């Protein structure tokens, strides 16, 4: 039974997110005074053909650290969804 990993990669707070800033300014220009900030990240879906949840989690952590995110400037988080 495979798992579907929904992975989010975001820039660390200390890194200037220029895309997020541009969107934030655009929203404010549109009159959304309540909008405080916007940040842009990446959303990645990976299907993992593995029956064991903890093994799927291990693979997911590994690929996030190795390729999908750059730990120097990004954080990652994921949800594992069982696919029937």
């Amino acid at each position, binding site marked *: 039974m495979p798992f579907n990993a929904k992975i989010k990669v975001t820039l660390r707070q200390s890194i*200037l997110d*220029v*895309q997020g800033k541009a969107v934030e300014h655009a929203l404010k220009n549109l009159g959304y005074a309540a909008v405080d900030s916007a940040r842009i990240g*990446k959303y990645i879906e990976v299907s993992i053909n593995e029956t064991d949840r903890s093994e799927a989690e291990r693979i997911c952590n590994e690929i996030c650290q190795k*390729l999908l995110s750059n730990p*120097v*400037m990004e954080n990652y988080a994921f949800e594992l969804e069982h696919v029937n």
Partner: protein
Amino acid sequence: MAPITAGIVVFPGSNCDHDTEYAVASFKGVRPVLLWHNEHDLRGVDLVVLPGGFSYGDYLRAGAIARFSPIMQEVVDFARKGYPVLGICNGFQVLLESGLLEGALSRNRDKKFICSPTNIRVENAATSFTSRCRPQEVLSIPIAHGEGNYFAPPEVIDRLEVNGQIVFRYCDAQGNVTPESNPNGSIGNIAGIINREGNVLGLMPHPERASETLLGSADGRKLFESLFDFLAGRQ
């Protein structure tokens, strides 16, 4: 004396590989060799240049996928053995992703892709890449990038500083390192760094695009000359 062979890696999406080949071939006694990303053989080259461009379309992050290409495994071994490796622009991004250099490059401060002549100051003229430069010499070398905003945690910056690993900083024409002369928001105006061992250098400006006066500047030649001097001395 046998010619010095300079390996230039060609990734899908590299676009400064032939400019680099042209620049390198203009030096007496130096022979460029193009190395395809899918190869495992460095063909006995004396140095490796990772050229500028958009390897693998810059998908995911600049340099992130190139770092895992077959040739890069050999380049990492080559670098760890002490052979010289020069990363220009996208090549610098690949060196950071591969862990041969510390830090990361993010989107330019002003969101724009910048293609423009820049001045950089030589902070360390005692490396094998800069021996032909005077300390604090100002070089005019163009940049062309969208992600050149150098970042590293404060403790890494301190270490780079103390060890003389910051080799180039963006500056004005007089050599003053100012916020106005920082094109992309890099910490400390950093334009190029070297590893602790002194054999791996990465920089955002393109020395191959400043390799003859007809191009507006020949200052980039000094980097290649330094490197070839060093290699000729070793032969």
